[in-house]
């Protein structure tokens, strides 16, 4: 464990700060948005500090470890490596974007911003936690604000949508909890680093089998199920379109930008390290499901008439690539080439997590703007030729759309490329079929662009307002980041790659 | 026949008789023209003074007892002494309750009868001879019949007295008949003499018949099933202070008598071959805790507990409720009596007296403790009922509605007393029950004693229900009439003192126990 150069518990501070902001916003509702903005900005600054102080060898840094409930193996154990720090950074960025996008909350603004900040705290907490209890605490705690954000400010169907969201995620959590309890009962430890080391040496399977019998495959499936709901993976994804559509767009930004990454992060932090051999054993069915996620996501996106649902399914599709990459690399490495492919896939997955988060959040921001301007309309067929009255809007949203599509030069490309680069040698059938998803999705996006921005302008949209200055100012860094990361991906890769190497060295299939 | 000894042994009774005569003289001679309440006050005062002097007499009588030709006629000290002091104290308290009552103009006569009946009670508490027992019993009973009828204006009073008298006369006949058999079997009327004679001569089936007849007679006195039919009517009809007297003093005396007889005779063995005895023998074979004669008492006890508690559930008159609960309590106490003939070696505090009266160990102490505290509590209960009756005109449950508003002190006293009867700690009634059950279990740890104690405790739970019914009326349910109920200050003081005593003795049970042991 390397301690941060500044010498104090920055991760704890990072997690607690949004909670403090939430309390402030709750009690001073008139300035809630301002408080939230400031808190989000400070959070972003701290996330950057964390990012810049990562250990060079890709191991876990800025660790804090205090004993909490020894009899249950519960410790207050925090730490980040490249993966965690990147997710923290993503969360900070997306939260800032979400707060900015929600510029007029009519109904109980104090509560709204408090919940958003509480959600951010939950995200920070779960991305920095290294002990199951702590991690699970924040995993559950992020669920509550999300539920209420959908339930209280959502669209007309918010009741069933939030209910479904809650139930699915809870069910997944229960499966996770039970599997982890079994692990704890066998090993007496709830610490991720310890358990990873045990798994790497092969002792974990031994200990579990000794205590409980041959249940490792069941535990692996329990853990996978928990994350499969969150990512989501087909067929556990049915909660997502309704939830994303009914939630107010700024909340959807958070859901898709950051919360969905919790699932993938969990796979990388918990499922793969601890249950590598079991996952490798069922790799083929998992790959099939991943491919199904990719293809089905794309196909469904193409079929939607509601913009929010288009991008909801597009999230399913993009995260399907992450799943593809993860399951593809779950093979015992048999040579330098295979190892290189694994590294590429993993790098791609992590990059995709960040890039998709950024892009999807941006896209929903744009939808929020459209909704605001049109009084809530968001059907594909409701618009047309918006390029004429709002060229800047069309241009910026176009960039975001193309990034989502995966155009080279924009950030969306790099992740997908690396994933395919890594998956092709490891699982070429899956990769090939997934290309289908690429094609279908490209068609879907182009259709959106065509229907919304091109073509003749209907009368009532002739006066469609373009972006204000403040909006341009807010969006500029985001779009700029998309372009920058597309052209110079090393900015991220340099920070992530050592962690990738480190992780792969410690994983065992 | 040493008349000095006789005088000394009978000092308490003599004092009471003199006090009775004095009351009559003073009331008829000197204060005849005064107001009723003045006469009541004077008579009660004289009666109480008489009781107090009699208590001194009990102490002065020492432990010697009174014997003729080597045969003990009257014992003193130990159980007898405790019972006698108890009788006198309780009588004094019932006399205090007389203050404020208006049910009769014949105050002097009333107090005199009370004192004479108390004297009868003193005699049977100490008696060791069949004839002496009978004399004392009749003195007590006749007094009680008269007291029951004292409310001349009430039809119920007369009816109750008639029933009591007829029943009592019949059971006295049974008792005498049983006694005559004992005399016939042994040729002596002395309890101890009878015991030694039968023990020497061997078992005989006639013993059983005699014993059952005696139990019938004694059972009547304590209102045990199936000899209880007089109790509800008497409790309902007699004027409140008289009912209090009947419920407390006569019970103490009667149980003291049962203890005396039981400690002598319960060890006797009837013939084991006769059919009549077969059942008892069979039971005795199951659980050796009880002797064959004690088994009869066991049936009576169990029946009393069950019937008393169950019947009380259905009552709407509080007096009748108290009557049936008295039957139930008699059942509990008899359970303690049945384990009398065993000696607990663990407690060596109670020395033999004059080599004549056998140490009776835990059970006797527990029984005496129970009956004394029960008597006190019952007097208090009747005191409250009396006040409510005078104010509302009836003793139905509904008369108690809203009592906590109408007279909070009275309601609080009622709460304490009824909870004590139900056996809720930290009140003395709980301790008495606990003590009794512990004594029962201490002698026999087989399944049958446990079963009976369990039955008793379960029935206590039932009793909580009907006691709570009264308390519910007093505290919970809304009242139709909320006018305040005024009670005589003396009465209130007495009742509060009783309630306080119940609480204090419950918190410090050793106080009374030590006093009993010190005799």
């Amino acid at each position, binding site marked *: 464990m390397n301690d941060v150069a500044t010498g104090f518990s920055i991760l704890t501070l990072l997690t607690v700060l949004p909670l403090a902001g939430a309390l402030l916003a709750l009690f001073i509702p008139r300035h809630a948005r301002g408080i939230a903005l400031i808190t989000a900005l400070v959070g972003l600054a701290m996330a950057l500090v964390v990012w810049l102080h990562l250990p060079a060898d890709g191991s876990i840094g800025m660790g804090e470890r205090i004993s*909490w*409930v020894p*009899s*249950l193996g*519960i410790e207050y154990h925090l730490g980040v490596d490249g993966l965690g720090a990147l997710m923290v950074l993503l969360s900070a960025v997306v939260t800032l974007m979400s707060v900015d996008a929600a510029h007029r909350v009519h109904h109980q603004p104090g*509560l709204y911003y408090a919940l958003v900040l509480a959600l951010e705290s939950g995200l920070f907490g779960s991305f920095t936690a290294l002990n199951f*209890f702590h991690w*699970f*605490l924040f995993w*559950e*705690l992020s669920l*509550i604000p999300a539920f*209420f954000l959908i*339930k*209280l400010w959502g669209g007309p169907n*918010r*009741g069933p949508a939030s*209910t479904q969201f*809650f139930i699915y995620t*809870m069910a997944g959590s*229960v499966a996770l909890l*039970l599997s982890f*309890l079994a692990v*704890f*009962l066998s090993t007496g430890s709830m610490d991720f680093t310890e358990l990873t080391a045990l798994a790497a040496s092969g002792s974990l399977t031994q200990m579990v089998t000794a205590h409980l019998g041959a249940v490792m495959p069941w535990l692996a499936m329990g853990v996978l199920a928990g994350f499969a709901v969150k990512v989501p993976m087909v067929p556990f994804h049915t909660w997502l379109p309704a939830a994303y559509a009914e939630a107010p767009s700024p909340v959807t930004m958070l859901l898709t930008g950051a919360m969905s990454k919790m699932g993938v992060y969990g796979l990388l932090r918990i499922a793969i390290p601890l249950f590598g051999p079991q996952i490798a054993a069922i790799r083929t069915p998992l790959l099939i499901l991943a491919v199904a996620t990719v293809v089905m996501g794309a196909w469904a996106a193409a079929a939607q008439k509601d913009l929010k649902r288009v991008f909801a399914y597009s999230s399913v599709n993009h995260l399907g690539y992450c799943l593809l990459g993860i399951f593809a690399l779950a093979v015992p490495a048999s040579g330098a080439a295979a190892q290189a492919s694994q590294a590429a896939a993993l790098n791609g997955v992590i990059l995709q997590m960040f890039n998709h988060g950024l892009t999807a959040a941006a896209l929903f921001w744009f939808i929020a703007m459209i909704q605001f301007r049109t009084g809530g309309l968001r059907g594909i067929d409701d618009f047309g030729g918006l390029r004429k009255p709002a060229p800047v809007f069309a241009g910026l949203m176009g960039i975001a759309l193309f990034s989502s599509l995966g155009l080279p030069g924009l950030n969306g490309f790099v992740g997908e490329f690396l994933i395919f680069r890594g998956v092709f040698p490891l699982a070429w059938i899956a990769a090939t079929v997934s290309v289908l998803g690429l094609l279908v999705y490209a068609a879907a996006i182009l259709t959106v662009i065509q229907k919304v921005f091109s073509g003749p302008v209907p009368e009532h949209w002739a006066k469609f307002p373009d972006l204000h200055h403040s909006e341009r100012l807010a969006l500029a860094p985001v779009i700029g980041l998309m372009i920058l990361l597309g052209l110079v991906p090393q900015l991220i890769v340099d920070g992530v790659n050592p962690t990738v190497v480190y992780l792969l060295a410690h994983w065992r299939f | 026949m040493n008349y000095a000894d006789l005088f000394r042994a009978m000092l308490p009774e003599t004092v009471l008789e003199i006090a009775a005569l004095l009351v009559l003289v003073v009331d008829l001679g000197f204060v005849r023209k005064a107001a009723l309440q003045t006469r009541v006050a004077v008579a009660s005062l004289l009666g109480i003074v008489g009781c107090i002097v009699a208590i001194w007499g009990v102490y002065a009588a020492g432990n010697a007892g009174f014997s003729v030709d080597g045969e003990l006629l009257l014992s003193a000290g130990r159980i007898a002494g405790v019972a006698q002091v108890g009788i006198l104290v309780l009588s004094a308290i019932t006399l205090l309750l007389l203050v404020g009552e208006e049910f009769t103009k014949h105050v002097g006569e009333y107090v005199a009868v009370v004192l004479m009946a108390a004297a009868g009670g003193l005699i049977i508490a100490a008696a060791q001879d069949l004839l002496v027992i009978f004399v004392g019993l009749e003195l007590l009973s006749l007094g009680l019949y008269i007291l029951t009828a004292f409310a001349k204006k009430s039809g119920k009073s007369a009816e109750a007295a008639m029933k009591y008298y007829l029943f009592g006369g019949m059971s006295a006949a049974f008792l005498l008949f049983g006694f005559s058999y004992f005399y016939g079997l042994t040729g002596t009327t002395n309890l101890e003499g009878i015991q030694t004679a039968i023990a020497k001569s061997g078992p005989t089936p006639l013993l059983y018949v005699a014993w059952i007849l005696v139990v019938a007679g004694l059972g009547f006195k304590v209102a045990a099933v199936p000899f209880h039919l007089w109790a509800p009517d008497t409790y309902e009809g007699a004027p409140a202070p008289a009912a209090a007297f009947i419920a407390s003093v006569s019970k103490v005396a009667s149980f003291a008598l049962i203890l005396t007889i039981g400690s002598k005779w319960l060890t006797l063995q009837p013939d084991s071959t006769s059919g009549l005895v077969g059942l008892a023998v069979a039971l005795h074979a199951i659980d050796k805790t009880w002797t064959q004669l004690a088994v009869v008492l066991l049936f009576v006890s169990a029946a009393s507990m069950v019937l008393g508690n169950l019947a009380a559930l259905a009552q709407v008159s509080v007096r009748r409720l108290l009557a049936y609960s008295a039957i139930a309590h008699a059942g509990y106490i008899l359970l303690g009596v049945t384990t009398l003939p065993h000696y607990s070696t*663990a*407690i060596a*505090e109670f020395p033999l007296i004059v080599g004549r009266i056998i140490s009776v160990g835990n059970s006797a102490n527990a029984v005496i403790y129970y009956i004394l505290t029960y008597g006190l509590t019952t007097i208090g209960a009747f005191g409250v009922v009396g006040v409510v009756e005078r104010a509302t005109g009836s003793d139905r449950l509904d008369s108690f509605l809203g009592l*906590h508003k109408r007279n909070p002190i009275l309601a609080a006293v009622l709460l304490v007393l009824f*909870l004590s009867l139900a056996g*809720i*700690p*930290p009140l003395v009634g*709980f301790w008495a029950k*606990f*003590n009794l*059950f*512990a004594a029962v*279990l*201490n002698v026999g*740890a087989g399944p049958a004693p*446990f079963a009976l*104690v*369990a039955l008793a*405790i*379960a029935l*206590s*739970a039932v009793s*909580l*229900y009907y006691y*709570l019914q009264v308390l*519910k009326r007093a*505290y*919970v*349910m809304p009242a139709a009439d909320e006018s305040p109920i005024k009670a005589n200050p003396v009465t209130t003081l007495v009742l509060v003192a009783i309630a306080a005593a119940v609480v204090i003795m419950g918190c*410090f*049970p*050793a106080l009374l*126990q030590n006093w009993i*042991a010190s005799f």
Partner: protein
Amino acid sequence: MLAWCIYISFGGAFIAALLPNRKPGLVRWFALGVALLGLLHAMAGFAAGASQGSQVLTDKLWVPAMGIHYMLVADGISRVLVLLTGIAAVAGILFSWNVELRVNQFFAFYLALIGGVYGVFLSGDLFLLFVFYEIAIIPKYFLIAIWGSTRREYGAMKLALYSFVGSAMVLIGLLAAYATSGSHTTTLAGLAHAGLPVSFQMWCFPLVFVGFGILAGMWPFHTWAPTGHVAAPTAASMLLAGVVMKLGAYGCLRVAIGLFPHGLDPWSFTLLGLASWRDVFALLAVIGIIYGALVALAQTDFKFVIGYSSVSHMGFVLLGLVTLNQIGLDGAVLQMFSHGVIAGLLFAIVGRIVYDRTHTRQFAELEHMHLARRMPFAAWAFVGAGLASMGLPGFSGFIAELQVLVGAWRANPLWAMGAGVGIIVAVAYTWRALQKAFFTDHVPGAHELEAEKAHPFAPITWPEVAGVALLGISTVAVGVYPRILLDQIEPAVKALLGGVQ
């Protein structure tokens, strides 16, 4: 220090009965003062006893003839439960601030009940424990019968009789143990070392366990609990579910398991898969957990949901008790504290905050009242309490239930699985209640909005806020830092298990 909790409460009860009814404010503040004083003593005693292990507070010979001692003892478990009582007492008074009827008697009975509860937790002598246990019954009866709501007289009588029957069973066991032990004392320590024969323990243990279990809401003797809780006024249901049910569990632990541990030994035969009283009571506990949860799921009355959830949560306590391992018992005691606070909070919200304003507890009617908008404090307080009740991490219930689960697993995996099902159903019924009562999807019509404006709810008063804060902070503090309590519980459990083995 801790003994003063008892005396202050009883003294306060006596004085409260004498205070004039015309001055309700005086009575309330007096009662609050007494309860706060008790809480302070409890906290001081708790802190002082932190590393002391078992302390004997008082030991006087009470009835020499039977070897009964007036003996007060505090170990970690007692201190934790005394602390719980203190917190619950203060919270209960805060939530009874609006009682107007016969205020002096209300607080007199309330404080007497609290005194009895303190006494049970601190008793070191079995007879004394029994006395305090019985003392607590009568105030309960009157609190419910006079100040309660739905079917209060029936509920009160049922509660009183069930409790009395339970204590009657305990009395029989007490007498039997005293008679059999030959040690001629009724102190807990004395009886524990008396060497009671195994055959005796085999029948005395279930008798006493069931006797106490009745009050702890053990299935199938739990039927008094939902009726009683619903009938009781808010403060009484808070105390009933929060503290009084813990008396039963404490009795099971301290008396049944502490004095008759061999009653849990395996039998020489197996009946329907059960091989010892331990199996039997574990089965009853698991049934209670699941049954309570399932029935709660089906209720139409808000308060009944909470009542049945109490039965379910107490099932966890009982399950933890029969696991007979360190972690299971730790969890059971922690759950006693945790559920005490959480149940108190739930009943306070349902009874005081919601019912006193809406005058209905039926979901069908509450659904149309838009409580999330009109009573935001209540809604969010219930969210917090509901999450705590579900066992969400960060609240005290999670650690407690986790410990019980681990302990149950180590004893018999089937028990843990059963309990796990209960947790899942708990999430369901809590969430259903939350939805139906507060966060409904029903959109108000115009006339409904007008009616709401015309008849607004009474605003939240400061005692309610204070009460919610007190209970909420307690559960969160223990949830975030369970060591506060576990540091005292673990050594005490260890000592108890050592004595048992």
